[in-house]
Every structure is written in structure tokens, then in C-alpha cells.
């Protein structure tokens, strides 16, 4: 039997309260000092800390199987725990691709064995992410991994007929298609956002319309067939407008934004440092501001990290041959505080929505994203909003050293992460995984 009393925390930024966690479940919540506490309870002083439900990341690249030199399920979920996440969705672009029940069960089992967070594999929409044939979606849904989200992330399902069929097919088990919106012909050889900076630098541009055209098509398809559509990593002001319009028409579309698109702009590309090379590309300040407002008004539903670790060899090279992507699990909540909370756009209750309740709800998770009240599974993070996180990638739990925030000091810090009632992070450091 394990028992923790988390004392004087502010659940979702509200009034201070004590939380009692017994054997993996929140068993009591009350005013500070009001709870009956078992004698053997371990007391954790959470004065000044905010308690949030454990974060759920809909968009993580764990790289295993295939690129264990860049990340493994073990290192990626350690990074997740340090960032306050208790569940991550592992994208399908591994090698082999997660397009069969065998691969998704392997990743699911690796996550279970590691014991740092839940790991939910995402299934590929098409065989080998090649965009030509549907993969065995139902087999993945019925596997032990119980896959509900399908995505060719990294590539766009650009064939409109195939996209229509995928949207229809997953209705059989209430699945959802997550689209990486990138029109391939408009982005051939694209290196960065197309605009004033690409004009100066002579790098091939990645126009906003290449993202917006696919989103516009897909919300209309989703409406036509009555399916659920999730848009990964919105990056432009125009994408926000299309999603807002679709929602106003009753289309079941949900939208995600990454932390980096809420903070960084394409001006950084002037350094030619490939740490800033990412897909979708960093956009303009006008886009950043529009994305922030879209989170505040509810057009954007969730923050997903698109954590994309890469080896030094894949990043320490010329811009044009560097890999796309940046790490994000260990800095996500800090960037959300900096760009959304400290700017006054949203409060901590909305942070709990976009990083926990809502992603868990979209994906039908019953044991994640629950409110911090008696009876809930004890997935929670204790966050110090007055803390500071100096970013030194060498100290990250992720194998990836490609953090665009390196050298910065970001606001806030994770003090503890409870995963199913077990403290996987304590005093800001990794502790022990959950044993099963």
C-alpha cells in the first residue's frame, strides 16, 4: 500500500488544497489541513505549486523501432515524465513503420515495460506511409495497443480519395485521422516558411497555402462523410481561420499547435542553424500571435509537442541536408507558461484543458486527463510557476540535443510527476519507474 499527502497545492491554479493519493488513486481532496491522513502517508509539501492533471501529448516521436540512436521508448518516456507528461502518443514513422498490429503492440509493450508514462502507439494510415494503400487499421485497433488515432505524420495523406476512405473506415471503432497538412507539390524542396526571410536567404519557400489548402479540403471531407478529423501542428493564421469556420459549421475537427510555433519565428533561420529547421516550418510573428489567440478562444484544442529528437549527425550539417524537427517534451509546459499564461491569454485551468483533459477526451482515454478529485487515477504534475528552467540539452533525459531553447532560461519547472500514483519525478529529478 502506498499513500501520499500532497499538501497545499493549487489544483489547476485554484485555491490551495491537500490531495490524498492512495494506491494509485486520488482518494480525498480538501482544504489544507482538513483531511484525515493515514499515519504512514508520505507528506509532500506543495506550497506555491500548481497541481495539474498529468499531461497528455498527442504528438511524440519516440524513434523506436529503427532509430534507437536518436531516441528509444525508454529515453523518450523519461523525457516525457520530466516534462510532466503521463501519456504520450508515439507517431508511426518508425522503421519498420507502425502499420501492423505487430509493430504497434511492440511499441505499446516497450512503453509498459519502461513504466514512466503510458505509451499509445499511433497507427499509420497507409502502408509504409507511402500514401497509396490503407494499412490494416482495424487489426491495429483490435490489438492489445487498442490504437484509436491514425496518422502518416511526417507525410501528408494527400490523395483525396484515400483520405476520404480513411476518414470513413475509422468510424467503425470511433477512430480519428490525424493529418499532417502539407501539399506535397507546393512544398517540393521547401526549406523554410515562404516570405520575407526566405526571399532574403534564397531558401526554397514553404508557402502557408500548402498547409491551408489541405486543411480546407479535409474539413470538407470530414463534414461530407461525418467523420472525426484531427489537424496536427497548425502553424499559420490562415489555418486557424479555416478551422474556426469548420467548427462553426459543426464539423468534428480538432486542432493542435506545438509549443515552438507559439514562441519562435522564421527570423531565427537567418542564423542558418539547423536546430531551427522543423516541419511545419517556423512562421512569422503574425502567425505566432494568431495561434496564441486561437488557443485562448478555443479554436485550437490541444498543445502537442511534436517532440522530434535527432542525432548530432543529422543536425550538424548544412541547412539543406539537416533533418526536420526539434525536441520538446522537457520544455513544453515552460513554453506554454511563457507564451500563453505569462502573457495573460489563459489561466492554469485552460492549460489543464489543452494539455490534459482535451487530448484525453479526443482519444477516449478514461484513465488520463481526469479532474483532480476523489476517484480519479492519480496522474498529476506539480508545477512551480515561479521556478526557472535553464535549458541545457546535455542534461535532458531525451537523447536528442536539438532543443531550440538551448541557452535560454524558461519560466516554471516540474517539481514532481505522479504516474498512476507513483512519483516518477521527485524534487525535479527522475525517480523510479512504475513497477508492474
Amino acid at each position, binding site marked *: 500500500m502506498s499513500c501520499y499527502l500532497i499538501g497545499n497545492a493549487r489544483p489547476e491554479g485554484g485555491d490551495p488544497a491537500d490531495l490524498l493519493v492512495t494506491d494509485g488513486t486520488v482518494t480525498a481532496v480538501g482544504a489544507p489541513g482538513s483531511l484525515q491522513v493515514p499515519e504512514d502517508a508520505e507528506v509532500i509539501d506543495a506550497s506555491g505549486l500548481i497541481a495539474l492533471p498529468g499531461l497528455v501529448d498527442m504528438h511524440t516521436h519516440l524513434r523506436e523501432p529503427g532509430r534507437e540512436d536518436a531516441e528509444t521508448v525508454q529515453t523518450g518516456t523519461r523525457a516525457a515524465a520530466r516534462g510532466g507528461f503521463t501519456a504520450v502518443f508515439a507517431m508511426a514513422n518508425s522503421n519498420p513503420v507502425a502499420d501492423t498490429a505487430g509493430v504497434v503492440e511492440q511499441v505499446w509493450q516497450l512503453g509498459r515495460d519502461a513504466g514512466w508514462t503510458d505509451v499509445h502507439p499511433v497507427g499509420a494510415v497507409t502502408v509504409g506511409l507511402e500514401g497509396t494503400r490503407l494499412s490494416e487499421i482495424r487489426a491495429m485497433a483490435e490489438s492489445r495497443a487498442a490504437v484509436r488515432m491514425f496518422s502518416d505524420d511526417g507525410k501528408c495523406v494527400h490523395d483525396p480519395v484515400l483520405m476520404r476512405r480513411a476518414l470513413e473506415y475509422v468510424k467503425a471503432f470511433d477512430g480519428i485521422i490525424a493529418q499532417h497538412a502539407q501539399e506535397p507539390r507546393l512544398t517540393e524542396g521547401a*526549406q523554410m516558411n*515562404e*516570405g*520575407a526571410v*526566405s*526571399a*532574403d*536567404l*534564397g*531558401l*526554397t*519557400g514553404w*508557402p502557408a497555402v500548402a498547409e491551408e489548402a489541405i486543411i480546407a479540403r479535409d474539413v470538407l471531407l470530414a463534414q461530407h462523410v461525418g467523420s472525426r478529423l484531427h489537424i496536427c501542428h497548425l502553424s499559420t493564421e490562415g489555418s486557424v481561420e479555416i478551422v474556426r469556420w469548420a467548427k462553426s459549421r459543426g464539423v468534428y475537427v480538432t486542432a493542435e499547435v506545438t509549443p515552438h510555433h507559439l514562441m519562435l519565428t522564421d527570423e531565427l533561420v537567418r*542564423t*542558418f*542553424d539547423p536546430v531551427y529547421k522543423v516541419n511545419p516550418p517556423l512562421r512569422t510573428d503574425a502567425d505566432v500571435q494568431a495561434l496564441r489567440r486561437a488557443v485562448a478562444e478555443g479554436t485550437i484544442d490541444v498543445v502537442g509537442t511534436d517532440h522530434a529528437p535527432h542525432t548530432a*549527425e*543529422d543536425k*550538424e*550539417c*548544412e*541547412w*539543406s*541536408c*539537416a533533418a526536420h524537427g526539434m525536441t520538446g517534451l522537457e520544455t513544453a509546459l515552460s513554453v506554454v507558461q511563457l507564451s500563453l499564461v505569462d502573457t495573460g491569454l489563459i489561466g492554469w485551468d485552460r492549460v489543464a484543458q489543452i494539455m490534459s483533459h482535451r487530448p484525453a477526451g479526443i482519444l477516449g482515454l478514461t484513465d488520463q486527463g481526469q479532474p483532480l478529485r476523489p476517484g480519479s487515477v492519480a496522474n498529476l504534475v506539480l508545477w512551480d510557476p515561479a521556478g526557472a528552467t535553464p535549458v541545457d540539452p546535455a542534461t535532458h533525459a531525451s537523447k536528442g540535443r536539438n532543443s531550440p531553447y538551448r541557452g535560454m532560461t524558461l519560466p516554471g519547472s516540474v517539481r514532481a510527476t505522479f504516474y498512476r500514483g507513483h512519483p516518477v519525478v521527485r524534487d525535479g529529478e527522475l525517480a523510479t519507474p512504475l513497477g508492474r
Partner: protein
Amino acid sequence: MKHLLSTSELSHADAVQILDTADQMAAVSSRAVKKLPALRGRTVVNLFFEDSTRTRISFETAAKRLSADVINFSAKGSSVSKGESLKDTAQTLMAMSADAVVIRHPSSGAPQQLADSGWIDAAVVNAGDGKHAHPTQALLDAMTLRRVRSRATGVASTGMDLEGMHVVIVGDVLHSRVARSNVWLLTTLGARVTLVAPPTLVPVATDNWPCEVSYDLDAVLSEAPDAVMMLRLQRERMNAAFFPSEAEYTRGWGLTAQRVQRLEAVGAPTVFMHPGPMNRGLEISSEAADSPRSTVLEQVANGVSVRMAVLFLLLSGDESSPNPSEN
């Protein structure tokens, strides 16, 4: 100035100093003994990840006229597929104690990465990177324009800038590092620059550029500009639907015989420039290329002088004169 990476970072004073030094270097090149001892014992590496015999020979000639040791390092084919080679190559060059690295690379930004990386401490000279910049080409164009102005006015070129000159740059601006470098440099020196191209070959967001953009070559030529610079057109652009046919491109944006005749008829002062190699009959007619108005060969000669000036200024520290009287 530690490196020469882009003309956007050159001040008016920097640019005039380089051009004045280049004029002094040109004087050396016209002597019987075309050599200065200025960089004796220094090593210049020509690091070319992309074929360009013309540019490499120009830099090699410049370095040798300054008595530097020259190493030609051709890394073509090893770069874009396997990215670590830039870092490895840089470290190899350090082991050879290079004092300056002249780098040509198909990837925009590679010279800046080399300069910023901490992999080397040599001076880096950008000899053309991707579609980004080609600063010594722009400098040789500016030197040529200054000499054109000097001949027209009878005023010595030393200390002169390009204030009030109207330069028209025509062609594939979108893919041209030459156009970009000239826009920054020529306007820093006071020139008025007009870009002329089919709309498909202009970047989408040039609002911040200090120049005008036109799609109508004849309208711009009717202003009798001081110079018209024709950019080389890659024939394969047609396959990517940037324009429908070579004939249509030439009719719209080529320096054709008819356009030359129209300039002659109004007595325009316009000189014809081209960075080479020329596609005769495509962007430039033989009538234009072989006209007395053509500065193409003068540009090549000025290229050596400008590159001598750049290497000299980067490698010889504070000394401001190459002391041409010395042998």
C-alpha cells in the same frame, strides 16, 4: 571585417574601401610583374562543393598574385547527401592551418555555418552559396560600374560610390544569388536598382528590398538606365513551369537585338553586364554580348582585382595599403 559572407553586412565605408583597394590591385595586374609579396607564407584554401571553374580560377589567380600558397579542395559529390562532411572537411582544413577558406557550396548558408561553427578560425570568403549570396560577384559588378562612371565623367574612381546610377537587373531573380548580393551592395553604394523578371521568377515577398520590381523590360529600358545586368537563365526552369517556352522568355525578358537598337536610337548610356557564362540567344543576343557596350570581359578582369582586395583586407589586418611599389 573577419569574414566576407554577404553584401548585406557591408557598410558604405567597407564597400568603398574594398573597391579602392581593388583599383590598386588592378594597377598591379597591368604591370609586367603581376605579383605582390603581401600574403607570402599564408595559405588560402579554395573549398568548392560545386563546380565553378571560372570562379575558382579567379580566386586562385588573385591569391597567387598576392604570393599566397593555394590549395584547391574539391568536395563535390560528398556534401549534400552526407552532411557531416562540411564539419569534417573544415576540421581537415584546420589541420592544414588554412588562413582563409574560400567556399562555394550548393546549400544556402554553408559559409555562414562554417564561420559561426567554431570548427575553424580561418577567415571565410563566400564564393557563392545556394541561392543566397555571391558577394565577390557583386563587388566586381560594383567595381565595373564605378569604372564606367569614372570614364563617363572623367573623375578618378577612388573614393567614388554609385550615387544616382540606375541599374536594371533582369532575369531569374528567384534563384539568383548574384541578384540578391547586388541588390544589397549597389543600393548601399547609392544606386537605384530595378529588378525585371516574369512574376514567377520574383520571390513572393520582396516588399522590404530596397529596390523596385517590374515585369516590363521595355518600359524600364525606356528610362535609359546606366546599366542593364542580364542574369543567366537555367534552361531547366522551363520544365518547372516558370515560363512556357524559351522563345517567349526571350521575347519578354531577353536583351534582344531590337532592344539594343532601341537603346542606340535614343542614345542611351546603357552598358550591358552579365556574370557569365552567357546563354547567347536566350537571355542575351549576340548583338548585345558583342556590342562595345558590353562589359563582360572587363567584369572578369575586375573579378581578380576584387578578390585580391578581399583576401588582402581579410588577411593583412590593419594595414590599409597593399603598397604596390614594393616587389
